[in-house]
């Protein structure tokens, strides 16, 4: 039971994620896609929980579902996507997409074949029930301070850029 149950949950979540991800890209209605995307993201959050990364799971839900998907939906409602839905859903870059997918597949096969040795695992941080929220904080604000700040700066730049572009459109 100790080993069966976690594995069962993993495969269940993986199946849900794959299934809903597939539906996300095949739905004609953008809103339906968004709903399936929500389920995909929930599945990912479930995986995080499964890995005992509660903080990450909660943030995944808060940011991706509560924030980003809601904004997606908001934009979908504002923009006239009904017209777009009637047009062709797939564009001409399918060859490129196939190549990318092929590469990805190769990669997957390679890692699966190679097994665990392909990865370098950090030592699990000390203790069992150490609140991992704190660990994340240490990682983000102490160990990887510079990359984190750079990433946030990048996001800030992107946001300012978006605002500037939107403003220009208005005038």
């Amino acid at each position, binding site marked *: 039971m100790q080993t069966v149950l976690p594995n069962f949950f993993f495969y269940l979540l993986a199946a849900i994620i794959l299934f809903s991800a597939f539906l996300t890209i095949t739905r004609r209605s953008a809103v339906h896609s968004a709903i399936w995307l929500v389920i995909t993201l929930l599945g990912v959050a479930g995986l995080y929980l499964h890995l005992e990364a509660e903080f990450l799971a*909660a943030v995944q839900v*808060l940011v991706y579902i509560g924030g980003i998907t809601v904004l997606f*939906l908001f934009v979908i*409602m504002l923009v006239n996507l009904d017209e777009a839905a009637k047009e062709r859903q797939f564009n001409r870059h399918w060859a490129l997409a196939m190549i990318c997918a092929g590469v990805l597949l190769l990669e997957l096969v390679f890692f699966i074949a190679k097994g665990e040795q392909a990865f370098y695992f950090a030592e699990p941080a000390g203790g069992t029930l150490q609140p991992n929220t704190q660990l994340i904080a240490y990682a983000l604000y102490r160990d990887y301070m510079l990359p984190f700040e750079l990433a946030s700066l990048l996001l800030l730049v992107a946001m300012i850029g978006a605002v500037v572009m939107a403003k220009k459109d208005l005038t």
Partner: protein
Amino acid sequence: MQIPLPPAIAPYFWPVVYGVILLAVFPLAAGYIVLLERKVMADIQARLGPMRVGPHGLLQPIADAVKLLLKEDIIPELTDKWVFWISPIISVVTALVALFLIPMSDKLPVPDLNIGLLFILSLTSVGILGIILGGWSSNSHYPLLGALRSTAQLVSYEVALGFAIVGGLMVAGTLSMQEMVRNQLAQGVWFVFYQPVAFLIYFIAALAETNRAPFDMPEAESEIVAGYHTEYSGFRFALYFLAEYSNIVIVCSIATTLFLGGWLRPFPNVRALDFLNYFPVIALAGLGAFCLLGAAREARTIEKLGMAGLGGALILMGLACLLPGVLPAVEGLFWFIAKVCLGLYTFIWIRFTLPRYRYDQLMRIGWLWLIPLAIANVIVTGVVMMLWQ
């Protein structure tokens, strides 16, 4: 807890029982919150409110519930059926799960997540999906406008709400709901006194988060009829209603836990005020006596009996608290509920006193005042805490 349980299910048993009880009781409680709202509204507006069903309308929530459940389930022709069907469920499920995680008392078997508050917030943010999808799937203009308004409003105010909570969290030093209360006990002070600005911002943002006046544009009936749930009726409407009131209770509970000392009585460390521990007894008995007095004024015999019975029951409950071991068990819960009710009363009071903001004004308040203020509060708190150390 004396029942022997197999170890595999032992950690899950009592929380599940609690969850089931909550699921069964809360809809009724929400009905009574509505009754409370109507009664307070009536009092503010110089009238009586519901008086017909039961003494002083005390059975009104049940009548309302029966009415809502028996109504025809209408799904309009051109809606997106599946989405229309699932939206209220998303809203209500997330709200109830979040409610389940709120420690109303240290005696209740509530799972103590180490990310408790964050988890509750993430759940409520998923609840927004129910609103936006419900508005969209109705395939009608007013719900769509309502959904757009709500989304913009909820997403914006979530930021302010989050920053206000961060202010409180910095003082609390934990995300666990129960740990927060224990820290307040340890420090001997409610965090509202450390973080008055954060509490104020939290309260305003909470009004907006729950679509309450003066920020109730998403369902401003004089502008966009009923907002996102215009097309809903009967049971589905009841679900939205339940979700809405659950959310109100949740935000009040978070405020209580984070800022107002959760299940603690006022000044928990001052021995001289120990008599406050008997507050449940006094309150229940007082309420009972009030009911008995009211019973004398009732016109119809059945209402006289009902009122007297209620009064008697309340007094008995108050006396039962005096039995050994009962008082410590219920005291926390009692204080928690009292504080939440205070929050609810304030919500209702504000609703019936203030006019409604306009949509753009709401946004301006959120982005130009609340969020900068909340961020400033976080920075000031951080600086002060650094200096203090």
